[in-house]
């Protein structure tokens, strides 16, 4: 292993890549235009390794490793796509579809949804598992935004952007396992939240139609995320 500060050289899908030390596999792959699917990770936010879609094979490791949190090492050999990985990824996306109530045809995010795009890209054509059809609520108490739990994939981007970028920490999680859900304040209606600044960052980072702006109809909710790289860049320069 080379000294800290030196450039790391590694192979991703047989291609030679160089990387900064401490860079993650996902960052290096993106710089080299190698696609690795992910739903919870978003550039500018902390990583949690929760969606498991970015799992990759690393030579010498008997476990699959999440590309978003695994930092590169000198001489690493990484495989980002294989038949096994593809089947795992398809199944994970399938699980998400069975967990909530994802009805694309009536969704504000139809056509602009990361879950939908991911399913198309990974070739999920059928859902082999039975749907759960849970009874979930919609919180439309906020004057500008709506939270629809039916479409939430629990990526926690909203929780992280509110805490790390806006600094309000309005969002959090409650419940465990399959009953987990995102909440505002201490599970109060969003509209009555005293910590929410109504900045709307949560809405823009949400990968699906779980968070959307009021007044949007089917397929009209396109997320605008340009602020995030801009804000993180500004903060990076300030420190």
């Amino acid at each position: 292993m080379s000294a800290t500060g030196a450039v790391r050289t590694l192979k991703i899908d047989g291609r030679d890549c160089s990387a900064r030390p401490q860079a993650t596999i996902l960052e290096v792959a993106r710089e080299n235009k190698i696609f690795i699917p992910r739903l919870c990770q978003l550039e500018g936010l902390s990583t949690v390794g929760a969606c498991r879609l970015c799992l990759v094979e690393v030579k010498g490791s008997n476990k699959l490793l999440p590309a978003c949190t695994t930092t590169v090492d000198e001489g690493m050999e990484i495989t980002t796509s294989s038949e096994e990985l593809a089947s795992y990824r398809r199944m994970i996306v399938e699980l998400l579809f069975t967990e909530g109530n994802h009805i694309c045809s009536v969704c504000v995010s139809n056509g602009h949804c990361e879950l939908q795009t991911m399913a198309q890209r990974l070739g999920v054509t059928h859902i082999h598992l039975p749907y759960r059809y849970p009874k979930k609520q919609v919180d439309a108490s906020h004057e500008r935004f709506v939270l629809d739990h039916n479409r939430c994939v629990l990526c926690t981007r909203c929780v992280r952007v509110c805490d790390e970028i806006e600094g309000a920490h309005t969002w959090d999680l409650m419940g465990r396992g399959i009953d987990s859900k995102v909440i505002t304040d201490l599970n109060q209606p969003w509209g009555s939240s005293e910590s929410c600044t109504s900045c709307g960052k949560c809405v823009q980072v949400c990968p699906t139609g779980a968070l959307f702006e009021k007044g949007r109809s089917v397929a009209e909710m396109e997320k605008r995320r340009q602020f995030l790289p801009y804000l993180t860049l500004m903060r990076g320069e300030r420190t």
Partner: protein
Amino acid sequence: MTPEELEDIAQRERETQREFPQRVNVCVAAGCLSCQSDAVKEALVKEAASRGLGDQCQVKGVGCMGLCSEGPLVSISTGHLYQHVSARDAGAILDSLQGSLVEQLLCPTDTPFFQRQKKIVLENSGTIDPERIEEYIACQGYHALVKALTEMTPQQVIAEITTSGLRGRGGAGYPTGLKWSTVAKAVGTQKFVICNADEGDPGAFMDRSVLESDPHRVLEGMLIAAYAVGASQGYIYVRAEYPLAIARLKTAIRQAERLGLLGANICGTGFNLHIELRLGAGAFVCGEETALIASIEGRRGTPRPRPPYPAMEGLVGQPTLINNVETYANVPPILRNGGAWYAQIGTEQSKGTKVFALAGRVRNTGLVEVPMGISLREMVFEIGGGIPDGKEFKAVQTGGPSGGCLPRETLDMPVEYESLARAGSIMGSGGMIVMDETSCMVDVAKYFMDFCMTESCGKCIPCRVGTYQMHRILSAITDMSAAAQDLKLLEELCDLVKHTSLCGLGQSAPNPVLSTLKYFLEEYQAHVHEHKCPAGACGVKMLEKVDA
């Protein structure tokens, strides 16, 4: 505290003990307490006082004696053990100290249950009063700590642990010496030691018993570990469902602090360690080390990807040593007797002894400590006394909800980390549940999957939704409503959840299903294809439903 002062306390305590020609020990650990052993103790004390035996006969509460199924247990100074004792028997027991024994209460101790055990972790359980530090000191307690502080360097302590071959007793079996040396080498502004006492496996109670019966042993192990790795702050993360263990730990911490064995400038050597308790709120996943750390930090108890391991970045980002209760409890005897002594016990790759909570369909249920490498057959049929009511043995489940069910064919396999893993189970923390022919293995798998589904933290998708889907299929099979392709789907889900989940909970959640699919596939097929349950367990349940 110098070695001389410590020896002084030990001497005084031994003399005090000798002043009593007669002794009666009553188990006051949770198992016997739950069948009113406190009333037994009270009655004995009262009876002894009314006979004017106060200065001749000592009645004291002690920790677990192991055979929990026969409680309340009382041992007397003639070396005999009484079982199923009630307060009414107080007079007869006191009579028996000099006269003839109370035959109907006598518990035979020449059985394999007692004879096959080798007690290292439990050496003081059932003999000392867990609420008096002097009794622990009289049994060589804190001698290993003083020896380490005054005669050994931290490197020598770690070398001794490495020589012993001790492996983590929480389940994964990581070499303890290696873990300690990683933390010792790690750089940080402050280092921490944490004791994981968040024992949550259904049917497992090893850690609770150690904490209730001999809490100072765990403190001493943590102190030695902290000295070895250079930590100055310690936490014991114990589940709130263990009120007795918590109370005894609090007492133990206070006593050790008063004697200068814990706190600042320990034994005048300049070594500091403060230990605080943190109570878990009942989440199984908080036994996972990164979730446990998050919980101590006051955050939601969910795991995070490793690396970085806690040894490098743990509590508040600082190097942190996390070990299980039983691992720490092994440390003092290793330092007292040397690593080589410990390494003689057990097998090539699994050294020492392991405490198991033997439960389920066996005659003797309770807590046993056996050398590693003992066979499952010896565990079930000799120590456990076999299956009651003339039933046939079917399977033994090791390692809690993350473990597997092992059938008759594996009975001669030695109990050690590697062989259990090869057979599709794990050592786990030491739960061992025996099942007979009346248990339906699909139903068992469903039970454990229900546990994992409920205890999933919900962070990663495979565990959150995968355990739900697996549980749904298993429920369908036991309801006789599953289709043939459901078995294939179940296998696919097992594979996915095992290989893609974030933490150990998810990665091991399919184990009960995978092991029963491997060894008891015909039971699954009978449910699916013939709509019947060979064990009769699932059918009975359906009848009950009809009746209701």
